């Protein structure tokens, strides 16, 4: 077992746990929880909002991240968030903490803009009936355009 500084845990708020489960289970929208987590972190970073998870729940460790994509994006965002100080690049624990705060904010954005209307008691109702992919794609397209404007 690696030390937590070398293999830190990714945390989300407990309230998002079922959403992560539904969206990342077999044959669902995302192959891995890491994909959704990194996407949420990217949304949070784009919106410039960091928010600490509440009643936090560990979902995976650093070693589960894709080293080519997830690690690079999360590291880049942490570097950008901390005034582009290069010394943060070797600090996995700090990078993960920043990523968790961005991911929390990003998931809140998705919830506010889409999932809220289809949830009851913390559960997503009839996910198979929702056009999740199209709705998420439209949200991302909207964010991308906003990014281009900036």
């Amino acid at each position, binding site marked *: 077992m690696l030390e937590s500084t070398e293999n830190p845990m990714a945390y989300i708020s407990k309230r998002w746990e079922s959403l992560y489960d539904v969206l990342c289970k077999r044959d669902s929208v995302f192959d891995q929880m890491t994909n959704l987590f990194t996407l949420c972190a990217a949304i949070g970073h784009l919106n410039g909002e960091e928010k600490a998870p509440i009643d936090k729940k560990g979902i995976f460790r650093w070693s589960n991240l894709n080293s080519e994509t997830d690690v690079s994006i999360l590291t880049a965002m942490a570097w950008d968030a901390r005034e582009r100080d290069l010394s943060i690049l070797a600090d996995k624990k700090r990078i993960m903490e920043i990523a968790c705060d961005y991911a929390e904010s990003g998931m809140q954005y998705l919830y506010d803009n889409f999932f809220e209307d289809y949830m009851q008691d913390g559960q997503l109702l009839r996910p198979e009936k929702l056009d999740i992919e199209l709705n998420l794609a439209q949200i991302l397209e909207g964010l991308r355009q906003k*990014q281009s404007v900036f």
Partner: protein
Amino acid sequence: MKLHNIELVNFRQFKDRQTIDIATDSPRNVSVIYGENGRGKTGIFRALMFCLYGDKCLSQDELSGEQKKEGLNLVNEVALKENVGTSVAAQVAMAFSHQGQTFRIVRSIDALMKTDGAIVQSQGSRVELQQTDVTGNTQPIETDPDKITALIQEILNSRLRDYFLFDGERIERLTRNTKERREEVRQGIRALLDLDAMELAIAGLKSLISQIEKEISHKSTGELQRVTTIIADLNAKIEKLENAQELGSQELKRLVHKIHEISELVSENKETADKEKKRQELLKNSQDLKVERDALKREMAGYLSKGAQLVASELIEQLREELELRRHKGELPPNIRKEFVENLLDSERCICGTSLGHDHQQERECLLEFIKKHYTPGLGPESLDLLLSLSRLSSANTGLADQFNRLLTNNKKLGDEILELESKIKLLSDELQEGGTNIDDLIQERKKLEEDKRKLEREMDRQADDIVRAQNEREDLKKKSIVLEKQQSQVNSLVSRRILAEQTLEELEKIYNRFANAAKEKLAEKSTENFARLADDETKKDIKKISIDENYMLDVLNWSGQRRLGEISAGQRQIVSLSFIMALIQVAGNLEVPLFMDTPFGRLSGIHRDHLLDTIPKMASQWILLATDTEFTEVEAHALRQTNAWGKIYELVKEGEGTTRIVERDVHQFTPKRKSIH
């Protein structure tokens, strides 16, 4: 334990080295240490307690709490005065045999007299246990004070010492009716008869039972029953919903069948049949488009997994450019790892074969300059790694947005087409509805059936959601109930353990009580026998027997069976106590312990003294008497001589201020200073 000798060096008033040999040979097993008040009899008793147990004061010393903690000064004060400012040791050595082995225990303590006359004594003492082998050589066998204490405890338990090493004037305290005395009697019985182990087992069992009860109380919450009830309710709910789903499914089939039948009838009308045919075609096209859109959706899901790249594409590009710029400025470490360059310098050879030894100073300096320029302290290879991975991501991002856009456009296009088709289908359906009466009715009926079908499908969807929710909840509760069932099983097991422990405790207590009662009876019987030997006729007229009641209270009963302890004299109490102590020796079996009595006859009348002198040597393995001139007169000496048990006599003679010399006298010729005070 048989005591052979006591050797004192600068201990209390005994200056220099002085020795007392104790009479050991049966029947000559009585030793008398004779001296006037203040000569140091109690000092010898004190020496014995110090040597065996490290005691620095006796129970009869009337000291304050602080003084008890410090203890009395044990080092001879004359010796201290002669050596002001220098540490002087007091030492007591005691030779004894036990179970065929001969030991010598030596204990010493240091003190120092300051120039102002104040005496400072060390807190602890040093102790050594030696053993004498068959050839007579004595070697140290133990110096650890704790181990020596444990060994001495085994030989003569400190709890028992008050019964065998005591001040005669105080021994009558055993008969005082106080809680402490009762406890003392109880302790004596327990220690001698080895009841401790059984009491320890009883206490252990009680503690175990209490611990089990705590665990039972901790684990019995009634939560399992509550969870089981909820699971049963959920099972009923799920069953009900599943039945409703089954019925709904049958109804749905019926509706589909009915709609199909009506559609067939509608098709029989030519005009409407064409429209219906067209409508069916459009329905099929719409279905095909929906299948196509599903495929697109799956493709879109694949792209969503790269959503982070898409959202962060601008950032990736910006940061890549910045890192690239910093690299050009030399702010990032180069591709070559610093360790690699340092290794070249250490090995003094380049990979191309060029020497980098100290004779090639220019090349070395070149490499050192390279390190200085390119490797910023605190920056590892991570920045370069990040630049490389951002460059790769940047390349991979090319076209990603376009593809994503294409998928969205296609999806929108398909959506529009489906909408258009559905609009056409509705139009045709409306037209078909507006046709002939029969058709109208049929179409109206079909429309209603289709509406029922939609309603039913929505209801079934809702039921399906409820089933999933109930199943999830049941799953969670089942997990919880497994844990609770495990706890319940532990509770059952604990209850069995408690019953077993309680039964064992009950039996053990019965055995203990039977054994303790039998011991008490035996002790009372032997005490009474001893009392009959030791007491004078007048006392025997008043007292029939000694009893030990259920509360371990030592008492005497008169001939009418009434308690009379409160009415007898201090001397008679001493006789009762001695009778009890002798009984302890008898009941304990092969207990070989010297009876060491300070001031043995102080309170006893003449006949009692005679009886003691006649009886105790026969019962005790050794009897050591520390007697004053007033209690050991010519009468006692004569009586003791008659017993043929008198082996040794020492007189304590005052030599000077604070110094006593121990002088051995001849038993046969020794004449006490007083004839008799009686």
